[in-house]
């Protein structure tokens, strides 16, 4: 699913966020990326989603080389990736279901199918009763769940979550981790970056540790 070979990312100004990182994430795997803040977790997520381009090495996602991707091809790559952000990036000028409908509108679903899918996604995150509510009226945990609903509504094969539980208390956080587990069991590849060790679900989940941009083994 995702292959990194000697990937480095140097930002303009000289800051090196990732140094010679090589790793493989298999299809259907669930992976935690951990490390202190500034270790390069967010950069790794951004590189996989083609929000940033690597300055060295190659990244392959879904058999597509990110570094060589044409600008016009990026949107189609992203439609197969569900992105979950720490700051949710919800749109506050529309209600809950309209937020979830946005990816479907972009992908060109017809109104009827889109509404059915959006409700199914809201149901999965437990927000079906709030579909007409406005995001401002939701709690932090609910906003994060809404962000997750928007990420999974187009049934992507890859979920990328950047610090999804960063702003949540532990109860909400474990709720959300349970959700990710469920998506993974349904066959979705899940990559979660977090600096919160308590959020990492116990069990046999693989953990990738980053330290100052380098992979720790």
């Amino acid at each position, binding site marked *: 699913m995702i292959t990194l070979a000697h990937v480095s990312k140097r930002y303009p100004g000289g800051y090196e966020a990732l140094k010679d990182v090589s790793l493989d994430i298999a299809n259907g795997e669930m992976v935690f990326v951990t490390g202190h803040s500034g270790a390069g977790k967010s950069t790794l997520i951004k590189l996989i989603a083609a929000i940033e381009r690597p300055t060295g090495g190659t990244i392959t996602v879904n058999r597509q080389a990110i570094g060589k991707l044409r600008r016009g091809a990026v949107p189609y790559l*992203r439609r197969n990736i569900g992105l979950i952000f720490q700051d949710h*990036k919800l749109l506050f000028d529309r209600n809950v279901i309209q937020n979830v409908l946005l990816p479907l509108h972009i992908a060109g679903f017809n109104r009827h199918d889109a509404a059915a899918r959006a409700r199914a996604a809201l149901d999965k995150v437990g927000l079906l009763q709030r579909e007409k509510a406005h995001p401002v009226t939701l709690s932090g945990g609910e906003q994060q769940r809404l962000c997750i609903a928007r990420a999974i509504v187009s049934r992507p094969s890859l979920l990328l979550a950047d610090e999804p539980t960063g702003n949540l208390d532990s109860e909400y956080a474990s709720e959300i981790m349970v959700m990710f587990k469920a998506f993974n069991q349904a066959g979705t590849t899940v990559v979660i970056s977090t600096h919160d060790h308590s959020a990492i679900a116990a069990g046999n989940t693989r953990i990738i540790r980053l330290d100052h941009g380098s992979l720790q083994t």
Partner: protein
Amino acid sequence: MKAWLTHHRQALISSFAQLLKTPFASLFTLLAIGVSLSLPAGLYLLLQNMTQIVGALPAQTEITVFMQNDAGAGDISAFKSRLAHIAGIRDSRFVSRNTALAALSLQMGIPDLASELPENPLPDAWVIVPSTAEPATLKQLAASLRTLPKVALVQSDEQWAQRLQALLALGRYMFTLLACILAVALISISGNTIRLQILTRFDEIEVSRLIGATSGYIRRPFLYFGALQGMLGGLVAWLAVTIATMQLEPYIHSLTQLYASPFRLRTLSIEEIMILLLGASAIGWVGAYLAVGRTLAQIEKSP
């Protein structure tokens, strides 16, 4: 295909919604666009009407040939037969010195003018109507008439026609110039309103980009908005020009009645209105395209 249509429909609906969301700001923008557009549209209409007047002027293309005072009946008939061989003459009419004097006395209101004067001071004359009003041809014709025997003076309206044509050409050039300048101004008006809109919808653009929206998808509602705004501005311009001509109509009417002219003030035709509206929306579209392109490039640079 269906998705594509849905996208376009959504973009159009969202453009209308955006316009209605800020009715006062929209109204002022539309007025600004409309007034700017009404200047070239009004000038165009003025030119069209002037051309119409020039076309209707009867005396415009006449050449008057005055014969020498000692020209007799033989010379007149000789002139007439020579005239038949000159090309480019539609009509010719002989005005004898006696006829001219009679007409003059009638015009001046002195019935016994002929008897008051020791002799008729007027020459015999030919009034020649050329088949074309083209200045170069007129000049040529006048020159060839001048070479005929017993001709004293050839007076043509060619200079008049030339001046009028030059004036109209200048007017048309000014129209083009004004239209170009205002097109640039309108592109920047449109670009600016679109830029403001982009700023207020920046989050939406950013999020859409992150969840797989193509540049086309992001650009589309703004392009529709620009085109729609331009077209509505064109509509305002059309209204302004129509109201202005309606205001002028009675004055023009009383003026033309004084001249017993059948001239009627012409308003914009359906084709011209279409061109105005389409041109205005094209200009709005271009302004929007430039603004969105710049903003998209900025978003790409700072993810």
